[in-house]
């Protein structure tokens, strides 16, 4: 009887514990990536679009928040932004989460921010 009870408890409580850990971790990654995206959008507005300095800045910021930059795809639209025109920066990462006995899947974490071109050419 005790073995059966323990088995039932493990099957319920272990997935519950892992779900809390995995989703907490995923939320932390999402918020961290979101913060980087916001700063990147501002910087894209200052630079006038998609420039090597922007890519370098994003990679540095991602490292600072504990995200490996090579796993993140960056999109800047438009690549060349005029004064007062909106510039959108999007970051996307595929994160793997695994909950024992329930499922394992890949969740795409997306962050988007829109700033405005500040360079008068």
């Amino acid at each position, binding site marked *: *009887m*005790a073995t059966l*009870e323990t088995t*039932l*408890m493990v099957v*319920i409580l272990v997935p*519950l514990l892992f779900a*809390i850990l995995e*989703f*907490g971790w995923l*939320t932390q990654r*999402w*918020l961290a990536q*979101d*913060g980087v995206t*916001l700063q990147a*959008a*501002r910087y894209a*507005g200052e630079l006038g679009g998609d420039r090597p300095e922007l890519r370098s800045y994003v990679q540095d910021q991602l490292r600072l928040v504990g995200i490996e930059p090579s796993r993140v795809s960056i999109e800047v639209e438009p690549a060349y932004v005029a004064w*007062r025109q*909106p510039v959108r920066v999007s970051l996307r990462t595929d994160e793997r989460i695994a909950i024992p006995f329930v499922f394992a899947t890949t969740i795409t974490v*997306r*962050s*988007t*921010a*829109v*700033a*405005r071109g*500040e360079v008068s050419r």
Partner: protein
Amino acid sequence: MMRDDGGTAAVTTLVMLPLLLIVLVGVLELGALRAVAYRATAAADLATIVAVGDQDQAELVRTGTLRLAPDAVDTARDYFARNLSATAPVLAASAEEIAALADVASFPTAPSIDPRTGARYDRPTVRLIASVPVRTPGFAALLLPAVTTLTIRSASSPR
């Protein structure tokens, strides 16, 4: 005396499981709500920063002083909607509606006092206060409101 405790844990679990699930749903919903609040605040911050980033060029050339562009309020509203749209799936109203109803004020000269918040601004400032209705199905399952309204505040000044 020997007592048979067989099945005690199973009964306890059956009794406690609903409570555990209620707590879990509440915690998850609160966590999600906090994440949305963070995102909405960031959207408001970026909107006001964008609005104050654009200066009145004629005034700058004429006097050398920073002065907000005449369309700063519209710009803040526009960029608040654009950035808020990233969280659109969890909002109970469209990003455009929320931005349209937001209280956005421009204080082009300094110092000035915000009549709504009482805050003193020592530089030209754009201030945004918005009510953001968020869908909270987890709370609804616990017989709490299905929509929770967050109040977001942001103010930015140029440097």
